[in-house]
C-alpha cells in the first residue's frame, strides 16, 4: 500500500513546473496513490528475476561517426513559440538562481 500525500504531489508538481491548485492536490494524490499501488504489483515478482528495461534481445547497436544533414535553421525554429537572433526564446527562468 503506498501513501502519496498532498506534499508529495506538490513536490512532484514543482519538479514538473506545473501549477496545481489545492483542490487538485487532493484529487491527484488519490489518483497517483492508486497508480502507484497498481505499479507496485511489480514487487510481487520473485527477487531472482533480473530487472528488465528492454524486451528486444539486442546489444551494441552502434552508429558510425558520420555526419548527417541537420535541419535548416528556419525549419528548426519553425515550431518554436518565439525565436530571436536564430535562437529559441524562452521565458525567464523564475526562482532558479539567486
Amino acid at each position, binding site marked *: 500500500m503506498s501513501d502519496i500525500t498532498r506534499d508529495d504531489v506538490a513536490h512532484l508538481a514543482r*519538479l514538473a513546473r506545473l501549477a496545481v491548485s489545492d483542490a487538485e492536490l487532493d484529487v491527484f494524490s488519490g489518483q497517483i496513490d492508486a497508480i502507484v499501488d497498481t505499479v507496485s504489483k511489480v514487487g510481487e515478482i520473485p527477487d531472482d528475476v533480473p530487472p528488465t528495461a*528492454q524486451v528486444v534481445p539486442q546489444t*551494441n547497436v552502434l552508429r558510425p561517426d*558520420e555526419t548527417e544533414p541537420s535541419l535548416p*535553421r528556419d525549419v*528548426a525554429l519553425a515550431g518554436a513559440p518565439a525565436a530571436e537572433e536564430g535562437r529559441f526564446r*524562452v521565458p525567464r527562468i523564475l526562482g*532558479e538562481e539567486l
Partner: protein
Amino acid sequence: MTATVESAPYTVEEVCEHFDPVMGLEVHVELNTATKMFCGCANRFGAEPNTNVCPVCLGLPGSLPRVNGTAVESAIKIGLALNCQVRERSGFARKNYFYPDMPKNFQISQYEDPIVFDGHLDVPLDDGSTWRVEIERAHMEEDTGKSLHIGGATGRIHGADHSLLDYNRSGVPLIEIVTKPIIGAGVRAPEVARAYVTALRDVLRGLGVSDVRMDQGSMRCDANVSLMPKGTSTFGTRTETKNVNSLRSVERAVRYEMGRHAGVLLSGGSIRQETRHFDEQSGTTSPGRPKETFADYRFFPEPDLPPLEPSRDWVETLRAGLPERPWERRARIQTEWGLSDEELRDLVNADALDLVADTVDAGAPPESARSWWVSYLTQQANAAGVTLPELAITPAQVARVVALVAEGTLTNKLARQVVDGVLAGEGEPDDVVAGRGLAVVSDESALTAAVDEALAAQPDIAEKIRAGKTKAAGAIVGAVMKATRGQADAARVQELVLERCR
C-alpha cells in the same frame, strides 16, 4: 549582479590545524567525435546558433536516439587509460529535470552501470612525488544546449527577462569522470586538485579523444569540498563548485572553499549543501542554482537504447593501442635528449614538446629542433599573438630548414628568412629558398669577384690589410656580405679577403 565577495578567513594551513579536507572532483569532457552522441549532427564548436540540430537533439516527439560507436570507443579508451574496469553490460538512463537547456526534459546519461569504473590515476605533483587519485567511474552522457540570458547585467539568470537557447551543443558526447573521495591531502589538497585535472587533461590529450580546452568548455571541472574535524572520519557537508574554467582556478576554488568552510564551522555555523559558482575575477564562490536532490532526478533505464556489451576482443584491441602516458613519455624524452628539468618544463609549458618531438622524428637533431621552437618560432608566435601549435609551420618543415643549414645551403640568418617565408605562406622551405633566392653563395668565382670588387672600392683598407693589419679585413667582409645580401658564408669570405691581399 556581482558575486558577493566573502573573504576566506582562513589560510589552508590554518584550516588544516583543525580539519582534514575531503575532495571529490567531477570532470566533464566533450569528445571530439565528428558527430553528436545520439544523432548525426556535426559536433562543432563555434557554429552559427541552431545550425547543427535535428529532431533527436531538439527532443522532438517521435525521434529516436542512436549511439555513436566512436564515442563508446573513446569512453572505453578513457577508462583503460585511467586503469578502470570495463563493464561487461552497461546501459543508458534518463535523468529527468526541467530546464530549457535540455529540450527533452531529460538528459540521457548512465546511472547504475557506467561503462567503466574503479580505476586510478597516479598524478605527478610539483615536487616530483606522485599522488594516487582513485577513480569511482566514468560514464557517457550528452551535453546540454547553451542559454543566453537577456536583460541581466552579467548574463546570469538573476535579473534576466528572458533566455535564448542554442542547441548546437545539445547532444554533444560528454564523458563525466568522477573520483572517489580524495582524503589525506591536507594542505596539499588544492595542489592535488590542480595536479589531477592537469594529469587528466594530459592523458586525454594523449588519447586524442577531446580538445580538452577548459577555456572553450570542452573540459569542465566541478570541485566538491568538505571538511571533517581532525581525528574524525565522518565527512562534513560538501559544496559543489562549478564554473571552474582553468587549471589555476581548480586550485583557487578548492583553497577558497576550504577557507570558507572553516570560517563557517569555526564560528559555530553549519555548511549548507549547495552548488556554488566560482568567480574567476575575485577567486571567490557564491551560491548557485538550488539543485534538485538526487532522488528528484528520477533516473530510469532509457527504453530507446539497447545495452552495451563491449566484447573482450574489442577492449583488448583498444588497450593495446593506448599511447604512452604523457609524463612517462616526457621522462623518456628528457633522458634521450639530455634535457634539464627546467628545459623540459619550458618545453611543456610552451606546448612545444610534441612539436619538438615531431621535428626530431622528421630527422632533426634534438638540440636544433628545440632551439628553433623555443627561440625564433616562439618569438614569431608571440608577435603574431598565436600559440606555438597554431603557427603556420609544421615540424617537418622545421626539420627541412635544419637540414638545409646542416648541409650548408643556408646560414642561420638565411634559415630565419626561409622560416619567415613558410610562415607567410610561400610554400615549403625549398620553395622559399628558390623563390627568394636565399641559398648561400658558394660559387667561389662569384665570391672572389665580389671580394676583388670590394677591395678595389676601398684601396686604403686593402693597403692596410696588405701591410699586415688583418683586423681591417672586417670592413671588406662586411661589404661583401652586403653585396651578396647576406648569402655568403662570412668565414669563407674572410679567408678569401686575406688570400687576395697576400
